[in-house]
């Protein structure tokens, strides 16, 4: 089979002391829709090894990350190549009313890390990313520059940005443009 190509294949990662920006390509991503109070929700949680978080704007981590993206919607991020996951989830809640959709290539992930990461994101993100407000374990669907993104705060200064694949080139260019200032120091 020919080589796969990620949306930011041509993106030159940024690696400075103050700031790191790089694509994390080919994650397995599933969109999960289910009534959080249903048995199916619990079964999906068991199959994932991570219960579906019900607090808005948070994510739970285990073998995979499960991000709350709506009151009955989650985005599951698993390592590349977890092709069997979708089937396992369907099996776990067979017959129940759930929506499980493979969206692996719908978005790509960009990791932004370093002491200037919040400064960089503040150029285009209206959310308050102060660690008191948006610390590790928090996630949000929001707008960064002129692209819709899913943003997740990792440990320390790291953020994971999930962006629609067609917007990735734009967002990459925007991040580089905005980062210029933060690499000078």
């Amino acid at each position, binding site marked *: *089979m*020919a*080589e*796969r*190509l*990620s*949306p930011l294949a*041509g993106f030159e990662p940024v690696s400075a002391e103050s700031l790191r920006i790089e694509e994390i390509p*080919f994650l397995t991503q599933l*969109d999960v*829709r289910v009534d959080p109070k249903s048995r199916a929700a619990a079964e999906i949680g068991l199959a994932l090894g991570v219960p579906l978080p019900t607090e808005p704007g948070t994510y739970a981590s285990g073998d995979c990350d499960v991000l709350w993206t709506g009151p*009955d919607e989650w985005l599951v991020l698993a390592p590349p190549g977890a092709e069997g996951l979708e089937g396992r989830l369907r099996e776990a809640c067979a017959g129940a*009313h*759930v*929506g*499980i*959709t*493979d*969206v*692996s*290539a*719908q*978005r790509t992930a960009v990791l932004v890390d370093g002491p200037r990461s919040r*400064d960089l994101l*503040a*150029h*285009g*993100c*209206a*959310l*308050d990313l*102060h660690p008191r*407000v948006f610390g590790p374990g928090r996630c949000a669907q929001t707008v960064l*520059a*002129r*692209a819709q993104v899913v943003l997740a705060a990792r440990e320390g200064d790291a953020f994971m940005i999930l962006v*629609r*694949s*067609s*917007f990735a*080139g*734009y*967002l990459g*260019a*925007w991040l580089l*443009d*905005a980062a*210029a*200032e933060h690499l*000078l120091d």
Partner: protein
Amino acid sequence: MTSRRREGVAGETLRFRYDGRDYEGLRGDTLAAALLANGVRAVVRSGGLGRPRGIYASWTEEPNALVQIEEPFPEPMLQATTVELYDGLVATGLGGRGRLADRPDPARYDAVHAHCDVLVVGAGPAGLAAATAAAASGARVILADDRPAAGGCLPDTGETVDGVSGTTWAAGMLAELAGRPEARVLPRTTVFGYYDDNYLVAVERREEGAASRERIWRIRARRVVLATGAHERPIAFAGNDRPGVMLAGAARAYANRYGVLAGRRAVVFTTGDGAYDAARDLAAAGVEIAAVADVRRDAHALDEALAVAGPLAGTEVLTGHVVTGVGSAPDGSVASVTVSGPSGEREIEADLLLVSGGWNPVVHLFSQSGGALRFDEELHAFVPGEAAQAVEVAGAARGVYTLAGCLEDGVATGTRAAEAAGFRVPPHPVPAAERVTALPSGRLWLVPADDYETHFVDLQREVTVADVMRATGAGLRSVEHVKRYTTAGTAHDQGKLFGVLTSAVVAHATGVEIGDLGTTTFRAPYAPVSFAALAGRDRGMLHDPVRVTSLHGWHAAHGALFENVGQWKRPWYYPRPGEDMETAVLRECRAVREGAGAMDASTLGKIDVQGPDAAEFLDRLYTNMMSTLKVGAIRYGVMCRADGMVFDDGTVMRLAEDRFLATTTTGNAAAVLDWMEEWLQTEWPSLRVYCTSVTEHWATVALAGPRSREVLAGLAPGLAVDAASFPFMTWRDAEVAGIPARVCRISFSGELAYEINVNAWDGLALWEAVVGTGVVTPYGTETMHVLRAEKGYPIIGQDTDGTVTPADLGMDWVVSKKKADFVGKRSHARADTSRPDRKHLVGLLPEDPGLLLPEGAHLVATSRLPEPPVRALGHVTSSYRSAALGRTFALALVSGGRERIGERLYVPLGGDPVPVTVTHHVLYDPEGARRDG
């Protein structure tokens, strides 16, 4: 010219050029300070009257000294009082209009979002006290100030705080804030807008060498403290526009902050005590104070006040006096001042006239926030009233004019703000300052005179009291009308200095109270902001996202020209060397009709619709029946808005009993998903359906043409591709070029065709495999448009415009008669939507087969055009040269078009209308014989 710099003032020398002459100034000067230091008094000549004009104020309230920056890059209309001097500055005085550069601005601009518990606007005594008090609680504090250095008026007045100079104290406060990890100080940052929900915007003029020249701060604050100070108020008197007429506080600022004396011998014209402090400082600095004309009549009290004033001892104070005239030197500047009062009228030689008509609190931001203003009869000024947002006002901005009072007010306000935001402020000492008791101020807006032709109320617009009186004399009663009639307050300063005075003059002229009359509305921006700063980083390719598919790199590398479709870049056509568009498109069309072609169709919207009620849901949204679709099959569908007009179209494939994949047009992908969610969530919450966008998860390659089956067979040996095994409008999962794929047998060209969908990561590999067979020609959107038009397939948004029903498109077959309802059905029964003469989609064949009709051309019934207005019968929606038909053709929406098939109509194109024949809209292969190859 001799230097007006005070002795002992030194610093780095900067060279600049003004109005063609070279000067030197000191680092830290504003252009205005440097000009005054060089003895330049008449800095501009007014545009209309040609009157020489000087520097009136010392900061953003300056109404007069406007300059055009010429070098390093042309910038129109800045205030000399706010331009920080730099080496190599070249500027000219502006009496009228500014000039834009004729070359692109090389500078960069950007924006930042910020959040805080307490935003303090203004780093004067009140603001610094508020910010330090609030920050002591651990609250997140932003202190924004429009000056390069903190301290507000302290460097102007030279007052002391806590026993040290005001500037030293201010530096100490900044150092304290620097030690607070949650505090941020933004110097050179003008908060210019106060919007809803405590959203304030500011512009930072960044230091030389910063990554951007100006930066917009978008600040969301839980609490706001406005410590924006007060502007000294001018007085309307004859000749009040002469160079050398200056606000008393401004002259004091030039003396104390910049070490520059604005004149040698001054007359002071005042309504209150403040001007005495200015006069005292100027006298101490060496300016001779010839006399003080004080409108107040209580001579005894004034003598008391003066007694403590060392440098002014012996100065003549003319109580109950006003300035009635200004004599001018040859350059137009002040040479003498005429004062009148109980002692009679006198002309006093002077080159400087210091004016102080009291103070106007800077209430602009408070008013923008929605807060009410009230007129304070003791202060003779508009002050903040009831707030409409989480905002408090501190210090001079609410009429507290003493330093001690401002410091106390600042600490109290900052503490309240932090506590209101949920923080506890530890006991915070109030900085100490000298307590002074001021005498009540007098009130004088306008010095009465026989004529008011040189009593100015707007210096840039050259509006006088006489003009205001003409306006009121014409019947105008509202300040807004007077503003519009006279243009007062519409210039660069937006009436910052003279606005309240203008209101007072209108009140005087119409016999009402100024408090009842009010002011014109305060609107953003507080100070002018450059377009470029507001545009920020959203310029050029970052103006709007460029959306691309996973195949984009290939298209670009193979010479495709691109079409903007919404935010997408889609390959338009792929010209070979030497080909123009027409040749390339005809070649691509021929390739598809005669061999095989491939197009990147990845931009089509794709929505995964799952759930037990998915079929029912789609039945309600599409005009046709989707629930009868068999698993493995595909159906074309149309959606209408509730008004019955076509909204979108696409195919729906049934993946399982409870799962469908719906495709949408490229431009409507998001709109259709939103549409589905809206109906599901707000109207039909009981339907068990989930919708998920998978548009970018898939790369889609359309493979079309009589040879497409053979191409697919070669790439997918495991797939039975014969027509019986893989019929039209079905789909199959298969490996294509070794890649897991979902292959659909659908056609938008009328040819045998497939759409191959793979994970977008594999899109390029698939495309290269397809094109790599050597028999497949890549084609773009233009060819796709031609091919579908030959088949009479409409493009939503091109052949429709939001006023077209499915029936208008000849698509009755796609509108279910069996369903009780679908969105839009009821509207089809309205009188207008069931008219027989509605516009129908038809084909057109120009009688000249080589004539390409312009898309958008109109159709009329007659070969000769009558005089306008001429009722058109319709218009051309699509028009192409067809390789397959060997001629041009068009699609058109024509009134009663289906009944006109065979008729001759005419298209006016400038000369005689050209004849065309109306045809059925399907012009190529109407029998559908080619669909199965």
